[in-house]
């Protein structure tokens, strides 16, 4: 009953790969956008803010469908990426990673932005009097001080990417071994007769992964906070 079948293992491995790649690729963009929103005033700032949060409030199917229109092989962006770089998103695991990354992006940006906003800017002034230019101030002061928020953002993004269903299945469908994640596999098993045991097994796996991610973030965030407050 608790033995996982090769198909289930495939779905688990694929889910982890998609979530990790989505988080890793989104992270630098997330940090950059969070910094812009926290520190800069510019034309269209509210618009950018809104665009980032949009996937959180839109029906996931809508986001998935928009991705299909733009990033499909014949879509405006999709055909360009294919012609120039040979990159294909439609019905590939990379497309699932793209959908997960976009859906999880607001959850990544928010805690990082909050931690940038909470940093005492006077520490950055102190760094400049000690000879640090803006790049090194960011690397040696801003980024380490924002670390607890960055960790929280990574975990939230990872967990969201792991569980994303609606946009992914709309954009890249539900192909075993290519785009069938844990969520999609559970959905499939609940639709076929006798699939309950398999669905339950994957439900347990999903719970374990989510709990592990939460615990990891708790431990890492506590360690980072302790580093900031002495010892």
């Amino acid at each position, binding site marked *: 009953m608790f033995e996982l079948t090769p198909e289930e293992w495939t779905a688990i491995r694929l889910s982890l790969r998609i979530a990790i790649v989505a988080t890793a690729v989104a992270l630098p963009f997330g940090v950059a956008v969070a910094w812009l929103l926290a520190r800069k005033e510019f034309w269209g700032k509210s618009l950018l803010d809104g665009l980032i949060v949009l996937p959180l409030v839109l029906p996931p199917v809508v986001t998935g469908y928009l991705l299909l229109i733009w990033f499909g092989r014949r879509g405006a962006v999709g055909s360009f990426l294919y012609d120039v770089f040979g990159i294909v998103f439609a019905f590939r695991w990379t497309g699932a990673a793209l959908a997960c990354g976009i859906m999880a992006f607001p959850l990544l940006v928010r805690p990082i932005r909050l931690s940038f906003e909470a940093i*005492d800017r*006077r*520490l950055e*002034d*102190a*760094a*400049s*009097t*000690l*000879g*640090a*230019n803006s790049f*090194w101030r960011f690397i*040696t*002061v801003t980024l*380490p*001080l924002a*670390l607890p928020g960055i960790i929280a953002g990574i975990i939230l993004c990872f967990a969201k990417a792991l569980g994303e269903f609606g946009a992914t299945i709309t954009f890249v469908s539900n192909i075993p071994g290519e785009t069938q994640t844990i969520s999609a596999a559970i959905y499939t098993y609940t639709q076929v007769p006798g699939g309950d045991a398999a669905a339950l097994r994957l439900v347990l796996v999903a719970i374990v992964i989510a709990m592990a991610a939460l615990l990891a973030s708790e431990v890492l965030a506590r360690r980072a906070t302790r*580093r*900031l*407050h*002495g*010892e």
Partner: protein
Amino acid sequence: MLSLDVHKEIGELALSVSFESDGPVTGLFGPSGAGKSTLVNVIAGLTKPDKGRIVLGDEVLFDSRRSIDIPAHRRRIGYVFQEGRLFPHLSVRKNLDYGRWMTGAPDDPAELARVVAMLDIEPLLERRPGKLSGGERQRVAIGRALMMKPRLLLLDEPLASLDPARKSEIMPYLVRLRDKVGIPMVYVSHYARELQRIANVVVRLDAGRIIAIGGPEILTRADEAAFA
């Protein structure tokens, strides 16, 4: 020689001062809101004046007419802030080393040993700022500013956040600094007694303007009583 001609409006304050000082320790004296901190921030390059000219030794740091504005990180001016502003995520040793790290200067263990000995901070080196007392923190902040080998040292109310006992703990280090290290200093305080002990030249500010300049004797008994 520090030569200043600075004009800057921030909120309620209209700062407009012009003076030259050979120091070595120039005291800025005046009540809160007189513009003392704004003036040191301008010297450090953290606040940009509306117009004027700042010359340190033979280098022009700022000149609005010639569009010269050397950024803070290239001025090599040490700054000891009222609240220390040590980096909380770095050990005391790394805080002390930060300036050298940023400027890419070679390692100088002799200088570190000298500064550490002068400020008695040897036992603190591996600790983090969160675990230091107020007095210890200010000593490390002074050490951090010295370790970057500044051409000028700015001290903005370095004792203000300390209780009287801690104040008398730090003062001897500052006097030692003046007598042994030989770096010119600008020392901001609204306590007359502090400036009488450390400053050679006192600039008295009020509401953004200089109302008197001279030796420590321009500080009166009334000034001493004001915050005693």
